[in-house]
C-alpha cells in the first residue's frame, strides 16, 4: 500500500522539527509542566486546604486533565497561525509543495496531521510526567491522549484554514488574546464551569476546549461515561469536519489562485 500524499508534507515538517525541536518543545511541554507545578501544587495546596476538594477531586487531579487539553489547544494555536503564514507567504514552502504533484488539499491535510502528531508527542510526555507526580488516578488516562490530540486538531484545523485565507498576520494577535487566552482560562480547565455566571457557563459549553477538557478529565480520573463522551467526541469531530472543508478551500484559493 502506498502512503497517502499528505505523508510527504508531514515528512518535510518532521525534518524541520528534527532541526528546530528544542525551541518549540519548550512552549509545547515545559510551559504546561510549569503550569502544573504552579497550579497543581502551589495553588492546589491552598485550594485543598480551604475547600477539601474540587468536584470530589484533589486540585492537582482536577487541573491535570484541564492543562492537558488546554496545552493541546495552545500547541495547535501556536503552530497554526504564523507557521501557516510562513508557508503561504514568508517562506512560501507551501507554494513549492503545490508545484509538485501534491495538491493544496494534501498540504492542508499534512498540516493538520503533523499538528496532531506533535500534539501527541507533547501531550504524551506531559501525561507521563503528570502521572509520576500523582495528577492521574486511573489507567483510563491512556485514552486521554487521543482525546487531547482530538482537542488540538479541533483548533489546528479551523485556525490553519483561517490563517491561509489571510494576506497578513494582522489579526493573529487578536485571535490569541481574545480567543485562545480566554478559552484557556474559562473552559473548565482551572475550575469547574458552574463557578461561572450562568450566561458565561453556557458560552463556555460552545468552546471545543471545554469538550476536550471534560473528555480528558473523565479519562484521567477513570469516570468515563459512554453517553457524554460520545457527545464530546462528536462535537470535536464536527468542528474538524467543518474546518476541513474550509481549509481545503482556503488553501486551494491561496496556493492556486
Amino acid at each position, binding site marked *: 500500500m502506498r502512503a497517502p500524499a499528505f505523508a510527504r508534507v508531514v*515528512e*518535510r515538517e518532521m525534518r524541520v522539527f528534527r532541526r528546530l525541536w528544542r525551541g518549540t518543545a519548550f512552549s509545547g511541554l515545559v510551559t504546561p509542566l510549569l503550569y502544573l507545578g504552579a497550579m497543581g501544587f502551589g495553588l492546589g495546596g491552598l485550594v485543598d486546604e480551604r475547600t477539601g476538594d474540587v468536584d470530589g477531586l484533589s486540585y492537582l487531579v482536577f487541573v491535570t486533565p484541564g492543562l492537558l487539553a488546554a496545552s493541546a489547544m495552545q500547541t495547535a494555536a501556536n503552530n497554526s497561525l504564523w507557521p501557516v503564514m510562513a508557508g503561504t507567504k514568508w517562506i512560501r514552502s507551501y*507554494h513549492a509543495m*503545490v*508545484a*509538485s*504533484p501534491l495538491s493544496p488539499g494534501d498540504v492542508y491535510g499534512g498540516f493538520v496531521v503533523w499538528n496532531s502528531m506533535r500534539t501527541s508527542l507533547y501531550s504524551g510526555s506531559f501525561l507521563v510526567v503528570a502521572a509520576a507526580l500523582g495528577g492521574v488516578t486511573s489507567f483510563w488516562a491512556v485514552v486521554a491522549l487521543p482525546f487531547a490530540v482530538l482537542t488540538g486538531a479541533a483548533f489546528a484545523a479551523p485556525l490553519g484554514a483561517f490563517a491561509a485565507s489571510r494576506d497578513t498576520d494582522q489579526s493573529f494577535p487578536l485571535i490569541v488574546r481574545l480567543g485562545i487566552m480566554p478559552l484557556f482560562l474559562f473552559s473548565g480547565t482551572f475550575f469547574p464551569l458552574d463557578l461561572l455566571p450562568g450566561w458565561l457557563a453556557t458560552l463556555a459549553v460552545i468552546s471545543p476546549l471545554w469538550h476536550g477538557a471534560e473528555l480528558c478529565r473523565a479519562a484521567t480520573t477513570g469516570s468515563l461515561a459512554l453517553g457524554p463522551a460520545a457527545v464530546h467526541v462528536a462535537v470535536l469531530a464536527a468542528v474538524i469536519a467543518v474546518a476541513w472543508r474550509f481549509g481545503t478551500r482556503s488553501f486551494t484559493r491561496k*496556493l492556486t489562485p
Partner: protein
Amino acid sequence: MTDLPHDALVSGRGLTKTFGSRVAVDGIDFDVRRGEAFGFLGPNGAGKTSTMRMIGAVSPVSSGTLRVLGMDPAVDGSKIRSRLGVVPQEDNLDTELTVWDNLLIYGRYFDLPRPLIRERAEELLEFVQLSDRRDDRVDPLSGGMKRRLAIARALVNQPDLILLDEPTTGLDPQARHLVWDRLYRLKREGVTFVLTTHYMDEAEQLCDRLVIMDRARIVAEGSPRDLIARHSTREVVEVRFATHDQQVAALDDLKGLTDRVEVLADRVLLYAADGDGVASRAGDLDPAPSSVLVRRSTLEDVFLILTGRTLED
C-alpha cells in the same frame, strides 16, 4: 481543439486568465515544441507569470484551452506537475532546511525513493556547483547560488519540461552568466524550456523562439533573429543631446534623416539599414548631438517599435 500540432509539449488557444475584473492574460495562442527553448518576453505586468502559472498547473485557466504534455491541467494537474520542473520567480527554497535537504524533501514531494533522490542530488549539486555548500542553510547563500539551487531542485524529478520564471532577475551580471551557462548546458542536452523574461538580452541568448507579450496579449512571435528582421532595421543610431531642449529642437531634422524614429526621454533612436551614413548626417546637425552611436537592432527595439514603450517601463 482541432488545430493543435502533434509535436507540441504546450499549446494554448485563446488562453485567458482573469482575476475578478482584471484581465491578466487575454486570449493568447502559442505552441511550445519538444526540444526548444521558448520565451515569453515582455515588461512586468504583461501577463507572463500568469501564463506560466497556468502552464505549471497551479492556476486554473479562466477560458480558452491549454494542453500541457498532452493533458488538460484542469483534469490531470497532478500528473502534469509530476513531469515539470519549475523555477519560480519568487524563490521558495525551504529556508528551514539545508541545501541538501531542500533537494531531498523536494524529491519526496514527487514521491521518488530516497536512494534515487540522493544519487541525483549529488549529481545536481555538482552540476550547479554547490557541492561544497550541501550542509549549509539556504539563507546565507547569495542570490545566484539560491537561483542555481532552485534550478537543481527543479531537475530532481528529471522533468520533460522546465518552466523558468524570470530566471536571472535580481542577479548581478556574473551570477547571471553562471545561471545562463547552466541553462545552455541543459539546452544542449535537448531539454525543453519555457521561460519568461523582461531582459531582451536573456531572450536573445537563450530562446530559440519567443513571443512578445504586452498588456496581456501576444504582439509578435518568432525567433529572435526573425523578429528583428521583420520588425526592425538592421542598425540603430542612438543620438543624445546635452539638454532636453536641444533634443526637442533637433527633432524635425532627425525625422528627416530616416523613415522610422523613436523618441525616448533621454535619447532619440533612428532606425536605418545604413547606420553609419545616418550617424554622420546626424553628427552635422545644429544643435550638435553630444553623442551619436551606431549599434545592431535588438529585441528591445522590436518591442519599442511594436508598443511604443521600453521593456523596463
